């Protein structure tokens, strides 16, 4: 099993996301995360998909997605030449005695505490996959009440931008 991050530039119109997610579900491809948002040009939407599978499946994903008529461009965001970020919100049980220890872990990871309640707090962390995994791992000693993850957003390094579509 491998993991790949694909980036898609698609026409910003109704039904595109359902065509893409429908393709994944009917062909049985595994999506780890999918994020979508408009680009600097409101005509287009950028979609970032993290998918799992063997080499052949990942190759098929790229080709089949590329066949969709609304998809302007699809390519792999290779780790060396791209940056990825994900945002995560963690709600954690934090009693008086635990609070200070959690705050110091939070500081080390440059995460932010964005809400504190009598016996819980919510921490916000932005980072790449390994940073987020390491952070969650460190918090395992505490009682994690909720996790919300946004999925990966990513960009290719360098000055290339949306104007390649024009």
């Amino acid at each position, binding site marked *: 099993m491998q993991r790949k991050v694909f980036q898609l530039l698609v026409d910003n119109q109704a*039904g595109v996301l359902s065509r893409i997610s429908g393709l994944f579900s009917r062909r049985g491809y595994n999506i780890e995360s999918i994020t979508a948002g408009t680009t600097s040009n409101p005509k287009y939407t950028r979609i970032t998909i993290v998918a799992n599978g063997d080499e052949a499946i990942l190759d098929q994903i790229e080709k089949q997605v590329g066949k969709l*008529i609304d998809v302007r461009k699809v390519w792999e965001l290779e780790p060396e030449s791209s940056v990825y970020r994900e945002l995560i919100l963690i709600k954690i049980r934090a009693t008086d005695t635990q609070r200070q220890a959690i705050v110091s872990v939070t500081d080390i990871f440059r995460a932010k505490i964005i809400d504190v309640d009598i016996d819980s707090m919510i921490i916000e962390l932005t980072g790449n996959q390994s940073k987020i995994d390491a952070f969650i791992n460190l918090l395992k000693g505490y009682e994690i009440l909720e996790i919300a993850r946004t999925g990966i957003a990513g960009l290719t390094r360098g000055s290339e931008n949306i104007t390649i579509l024009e």
Partner: protein
Amino acid sequence: MLGADAIARCLLEEQVKVIFGYPGVAICPFFNSMLSVDIDRVLVRTEQNAAHMASGYARISGKVGVCVATSGPGATNLITGIATAYADSIPLVCITGQVNSEQLGSDVFQEADITGAVESFVKYSYLVKDADDIPRIFKEAFHIASTGRKGPVLIDVPIDIQNAPVGKFYYPSEVNLRTYKPTVKGHVVQIKKVIKAIEKAKRPIICAGGGIHLSNAAKELRDFAHKCGIPVVSTLMGLGVMPTDDPLYFGMVGNNGKSYANRAMNESDLTIMIGARVADRAISQPDLVMDNTVLVHIDVDPAEIGKNVGPHIPLVGDIKNILEDMEKYETDCSCGEWIDTLNEYKRNEPERKAPRKEYVDPAKFIAMLSDKLDDDAIYVADVGQNQMWSCGYHKVKNGRFLTSGGMGTMGYSIPAAIGARAAAPDRQIVAVCGDGSFQMSMMELATMQQHKLPVKIIIFHNGYLGLVREYQYNTYKAHYSVVDLSGSPDFGKLSAAYDVPFFRLENMDNASEVIDEFLSIKDPALMEIMIDPLDVVK
């Protein structure tokens, strides 16, 4: 001009000659506008068959087939036909009526989210939101359906859009789809690699698929195979690419194919797959094919390459274009010994076990029938045992063999044959079906009579859903469940009810005379042939 008039104009611009459809309120503005254009309108008896007729029409005319249905159940009835066309890459434009735009999503009478429902069976779909978009959308739809890997496109048109005024009608001469640019020309480096591989090969084989028909490249394939002296096998969808009696043709591959065709594939040292998707019924173990052979895969759809088997030499492009390019090279493959071996295998193919004498032998019957058919006859096989026997024993000359390959949709043969008739008024057309598949579309006898689109129909009557019965015999020790077709009508009386001449063949004794008579009368005609209920495919 209203939206509906604009649609009719678009069909004229696309030189559509005939549409197959079924009206309902939500598509009535369109049918009203059709009164003022010179395009034939065929009323089917159920919407599924409108799509099948459009499919038969498209496959014979080489043009896009058009079918039309109303909103809700009309649209959902089309789905099986659309899926059937999608599986075999048949170009269709399917037009559906839809409820008022403002009421979309509120579950009003006869509302169905058809663009959502057909999502996985179409190349693309449109929900028209502005009547002024109609010309652009139709231009795009016909373009998408008929280029690259062909397939169905659906256009859903709410009734208020059909009734909305359209400003100036302007039909675009070109489409502007920047992301949709199918590769036509094969890459010259890859072509040279293929030529080199052919020169090196001692035991080459071409496996010809349905893509060759879709690219209208049968002639180019024959020329290429003969020029290089490479033997050819075909898939189910590729049948008819070569005449069955061509000295370089070695039958159909697959689990229902000829064993000598499969041996040819297994023992080759160079396999050239052309317009075939290496599907499970043709190549059951794609990995094995790769073991001893250099695999070349030529297809217009890059996603097919590497989907089921990873080729050594991929070549993307339109097959006709690629074959024309390849013909320019001087290649000669001196593989006479290999062809001798294949002929030896062919001679040693075991004969099929004949059924009991009191019944018609389907293999002999089909062979006899095809000998008597015109050179360019169109033979449409349904799905089931009749289909397997047909692909095993029908000898294609310069005609066509049509069937539902990818989806295996029962009831395909009669509507597809009627659609083919609309495309080829003067050719001999025979639909072959079982007593099961016949009853799935026998209502279309009325369509055939009403619209003077007569075809010849042969029913293989064994009183069972034969292929499933055979499967239950082998898998469930002959515990038959829901395969007995008792209760079927008297097909003779049914023919009389539709005013169609009827023939019945009990056994092989007078087969030749009955077939002669059946073929000699002017269409339409229906023949019932009695098959041993326990007869099996092989």
